[in-house]
């Protein structure tokens, strides 16, 4: 798991004026909208007593900790401590990490990290799936997000997920092409969908046959965890966010010419065994993610989740540092909660 990326933390539709808790990268975040509708991501951990801001409420543009009513502005600074006497200034240390937040094409992204904007990997390039036929949902996997992406990023699996009638695997692929960019990768191919036979049991048994067809399919990987899928006219965007090193939540939006009530839910559920138990296939997308993550590790962005699990869980709170920790020298001593430990890059 890596910091210093724009992480897609929630589909826009889930973020409102009521604070929302999102767990990602072994940390808790609170997502909410200010009165003008702008989405904001803060660390969910109140600096005072470790209360969850996401259990609180909004007062104007401030999120209020439910334990002692401390009010935090969008920049993470506490602006009111109700127990304090009137006129007592709020200490500088009363603050939580506030993360740069961007909303794009149906997703709320938080930049979870502290590097300057010039050094940041770009925001995932995703299409807007906001047509009337769009469906959304999520699924939780007992698998590392790298495994989930390697499996779902495989073209055959992607075609299986997006096909309106589930294709018997393997569907024959032709004209496969792969592209690589610094923070992404793409694969395209023609999927040769075989002749399909559907049997319907009603009052009478009927038999329908579909002619073989060729559809263009593609999967695009955008660091750190988004996959964009197409199969013919069907498109999907999936964010595979690691809750921790072994659990992943895939949140998805899908747009189908003939929308299915369950969107991609049924297909994803059918892939559970494969994703959670079989070894990672050597898909081009899986390999690209490995390459990107190695580059991130060289930057020193790899969160030491094993150390956190072994030494910190239940005992010590750590947070992903926000840009203000580097950018605002006068706050250098104001951060009570320590930064997540990172792994030294392998050389």
């Amino acid at each position, binding site marked *: 798991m890596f910091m210093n990326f724009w992480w897609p933390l929630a589909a826009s539709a889930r973020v409102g004026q009521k604070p929302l808790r999102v767990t990602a990268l072994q940390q808790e975040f609170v997502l909410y909208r200010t009165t003008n509708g702008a989405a904001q991501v803060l660390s969910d951990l109140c*600096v005072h*007593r470790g*209360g969850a801001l996401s259990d609180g409420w909004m007062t104007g543009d401030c999120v209020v900790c439910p334990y002692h009513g401390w009010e935090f502005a969008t920049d993470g600074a506490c602006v009111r401590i*109700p*127990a304090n006497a009137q006129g007592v200034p709020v200490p500088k*240390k*009363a603050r939580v990490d506030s993360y740069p937040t961007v909303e794009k094409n149906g997703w709320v992204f938080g930049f979870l990290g502290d590097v300057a904007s010039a050094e940041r990997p770009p925001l995932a390039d995703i299409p807007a799936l906001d047509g009337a036929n769009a469906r959304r949902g999520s699924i939780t996997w007992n698998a590392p997000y790298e495994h989930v992406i390697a499996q779902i990023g495989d073209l055959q699996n992607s075609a299986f997920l997006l096909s309106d009638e589930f294709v018997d695997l393997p569907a024959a692929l032709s004209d496969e092409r792969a592209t690589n960019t610094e923070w992404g990768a793409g694969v395209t191919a023609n999927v040769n969908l075989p002749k399909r036979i559907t049997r319907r049991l009603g009052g009478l048994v009927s038999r329908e046959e579909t002619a073989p067809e060729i559809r263009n399919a593609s999967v695009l990987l955008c660091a750190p965890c988004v996959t964009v899928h197409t199969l013919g006219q069907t498109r999907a965007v999936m964010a595979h966010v690691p809750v921790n090193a072994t659990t992943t939540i895939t949140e998805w939006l899908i747009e189908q010419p003939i929308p299915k009530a369950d969107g991609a839910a049924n297909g994803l559920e059918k892939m559970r065994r494969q994703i959670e138990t079989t070894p990672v296939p050597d898909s081009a997308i899986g390999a690209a993610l490995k390459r990107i993550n190695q580059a991130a590790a060289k930057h020193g962005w790899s969160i030491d989740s094993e150390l956190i699990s072994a030494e910190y869980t239940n005992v*010590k709170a750590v947070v992903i540092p926000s840009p203000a920790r580097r950018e605002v020298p006068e706050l250098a001593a104001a951060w*009570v909660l320590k930064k997540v430990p990172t792994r030294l890059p392998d050389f």
Partner: protein
Amino acid sequence: MLKNFWYAIAFSNEVKQRPTRLEIMGKQFWAWRMANGQGAFMRDQDLITKQPLGNARAEGGVLVAENGQRYAPDGSGRALAYPVKERYGWFFVFLGDLPEAGRMPIPDLPYLEDPNLKYGRIQGDFPWKVHYARALENGMDAAHAPFVHGGAFGNPDEPEIPDYDIAVTPGSGIATIFLKPTPSKGLWSRAYSSKKRDTLVKTRAGYWMPNLSILEVNLPFGQLLVFNAHVPVNDMRTVSKYIALRSFFTGGWANRNAHQRVIKIFEQDRVIVEAQRPEILPFDIGAELHVKSDALQVAYRRDRRAAFEKGWGLYPRGKQADDVEIPSPFLAAVS
């Protein structure tokens, strides 16, 4: 978890001649009462075989394991045993190996042993998924009431905590805070006349190491006292065993209502305290930010820290470990 303290771990009337198995600090124990009424407390593990005792029964002064092996509760047997005392209706056990002379005694609590006090009394359990020290800090916290218990006993319009004094004795701190009152609801509103509403309410809150807290609310119509023994079941679970006294509606007919009020307050706290991170209260004072109104909690943390620095932390990182036993004073005396 800290060793070398007297821990209230049960109500006296819960411990009977027939042994009961209890989880304390992540380990299994037996509590029972001998024929002469004396309480006994023993680890549910044979020191040699490392096996639990199975369906144990009491016989004479000893505990007999399912396999017939006999264990004396005075340390002469093959299981770790711990001293027991009873007071205030709680069953206290000394968890640690400090000799008797060096032990901080069971504290003298106000009110509970006053024979002239004709108060209504209830006691009960509130189990929750929290670390006991988080529960304790919550149980003596005045500043959260307006936000977590608004309407019940906190006044959301008056969240300010005025400067307060703390009476400090070794291992204890009791704060006296004058707060603006909250209008009562339900049954209690009948005791709450309008002319009493402007009086400041004297509130006392405090702790005794390691796991007792008090909240004393002097309502305009009477006094309400909530004592708690926050029993550390393990790092993530606590049973808060409360004793609540009230100077008004002292008859048994009001007990049910009083219980409901205590539980309602606890349930409001549950959501908040169960979400606190880190779950285990830090030993490092600087790990969380304190303001003036937190002086009482800081005093408690200092006492915890002091015990930790004496080497009384049972587990090096604060988390329980399966292979660490709580030392027994009896065994220390034998060896």
